[in-house]
């Protein structure tokens, strides 16, 4: 009896631990990355390159490097707030809540995705429901159900995490009634700054044909010391000149 109990306990603990480790692997304590983001739509697509700085869950900074027209546009996240720096206007605005669910820079990500304080570790109940093979890698299938009070719109997430290297390779987002809304796939696992991580991510909305957003990590640096003072509107203005 005791044995069975500890077994179930063990499996949920394991699932949470797996997700936590995979999350940690991708984030580090701090990270700085150059990412190319490609928005694909019917009839057109658009590419931009951004540089990101992240520290823990609360601080993040994104600066656009290319295209030239948008160069220097910055997004600063501190806890749940987002400021937007527009170099052409020399103006910083704080995004109002009504903008949070709008698309971020025309991509399939919302402004809310930037701010999301909801943590895939703390806001969900995790359980391993099976395993599968993706790109020749053996993966756990983990079901994640949001805790009742978590401010999460999803009803359920299905995450596939590589067993050996703990890489989040595939995620599906579901509504509460079971409707499949988005899929996120990760490819091109490479050694970056000493870590083995997927370097290409695709976010695909299920109900919109020929539409997706692709993120490609060009350069990543993990766990370099980062001053909190970096994450201020003043620094955001001066980072790219």
């Amino acid at each position, binding site marked *: 009896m005791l044995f069975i109990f500890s077994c179930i306990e063990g499996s949920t603990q394991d699932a949470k631990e797996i997700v936590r480790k995979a999350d940690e692997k991708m984030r580090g304590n701090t990270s700085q990355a150059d990412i190319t983001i490609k928005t694909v739509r019917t009839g057109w697509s658009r590419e931009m390159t951004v540089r990101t700085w992240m520290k823990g869950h609360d601080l993040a900074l994104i600066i656009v490097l290319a295209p030239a027209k948008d160069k220097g546009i910055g997004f600063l996240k501190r*806890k*749940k*707030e987002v400021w937007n720096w527009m170099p052409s206007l020399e103006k910083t605005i704080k995004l*109002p*809540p*009504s903008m*949070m*669910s709008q698309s971020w820079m025309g991509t399939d990500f919302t402004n*809310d995705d930037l*701010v999301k*304080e*909801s943590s895939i570790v703390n806001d969900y109940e995790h359980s391993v429901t099976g395993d599968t093979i993706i790109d020749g890698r053996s993966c756990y299938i983990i079901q994640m159900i*949001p805790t*009742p*009070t*978590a*401010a*999460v*719109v*999803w*009803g359920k997430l299905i995450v596939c995490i590589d067993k050996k290297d703990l890489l989040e390779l595939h995620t599906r*987002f*579901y*509504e*509460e*009634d079971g*409707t499949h*809304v988005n899929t996120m796939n990760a490819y091109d696992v490479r050694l970056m700054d000493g870590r083995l991580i997927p370097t290409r991510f695709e976010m695909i909305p299920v109900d919109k044909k020929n539409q997706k957003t692709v993120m490609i990590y060009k350069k990543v640096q993990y766990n370099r010391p980062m001053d909190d003072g970096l994450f201020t509107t003043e620094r955001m203005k001066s980072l790219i000149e």
Partner: protein
Amino acid sequence: MIFIMAWRNIWRNKSRSIVIMLSIVIGLIAGISVLALYKGMMTSRVRTVIDAETAHLQIHDRDFKKDYHPSFILKNANSLFQSLSSLPEIKVAAPRSVVQAMLITATGSAGVQVNGVVPEYEYKVSGLKEKIKEGEGFHDNKKNEIIIGRKLAEKMKLKTGSKLVITFTDSADNIISSAFRIIAIYQSDNDPLDELNVYVPMQALNELLMTGNDFHEIAILLNSDEDLQKVQQILMKQFPAFSVESWKDISPETDFMVKTVDEYSYIIMIIILIALAFGILNTMLMSVLERTREIGMMVALGTSRSRIFLLVLLETVFLTIAGTPIGLTVAYLITDYYHTHGLNLSGMGEDMMASFGFNTLIYPSFPWEKLAGIMIMVIGTAIISCLLPAAKALRLQPVEALRR
């Protein structure tokens, strides 16, 4: 003498008299029914506004309506709320915390107004409990419960039991997100408001807004509509720092609609009266011409012209006096029947009525306050329209009239 003659003349040509009387009866019924229908529609709309939407009066911080920022709380709200119970005109009052927010689901988002309410008061003031069509009301001690309108539920494809996330800025401008679960879906007669307003327990909202025990709004329901201005004055004096608004200030479009319809119904009444006047005018003119010989004879025999004038006038007055009570009684019976049973206008389209905040079941109401006016107008019309025939009778030359 003239009285008797006029009376007899009426009975001499029964069909003519009946036609005139019927015109007056129909005119009255038509006029009163139209007024009653419009009055019923307006009373029901005003009742809905007061009983289900705005209540009689609302108290806010002076700056609250400018920006709906959650930091504009009513200061010392609770003692203010307590003090209201000392006014005998006030039936019940409900405190509300109000914040503009985004409601977010996995597939979409919508702007809403979140009302933090205390169920026991809210149910009494806005009848929220009666409006619930699916699910039950709030449960004690459960915080993340939300009640949303049917229109919003349809738009966002939500059901009872669905979860949603609400995002807004708190009183210190921090962005707050919180998950709620739909426990009930309500539906009122006003679709646009159903799409906008969602209800959560006040305590839960206050904790998120960091406004402590204070709140933004007090909605007050009075015992009687007549006390509206009086109580508004009293409260304005008592709380000069706050804005005290009546439903007319909060929902000017309802007041506007009531006024427009009033104007409308008078124009309709005037058209009906003109038609009535022409009917009477024609008939009496005919009757004078018909009696040319007779009237000529009377003049020749020495009846004074003023008496002849009076004769024609009296005939009309008799017919009007006979027609008026019949018309009024029938009109009263018709409106009374529909007043108790309701007049179903769903043929006009339920959605359409709801989009203007009307119930499809209209209870026409006998326009007592306009009764005197209507009667004066109808009788006046009758008398004015017989002036011409009477004058015509005067102008008859006895000799010429007799010759024919």
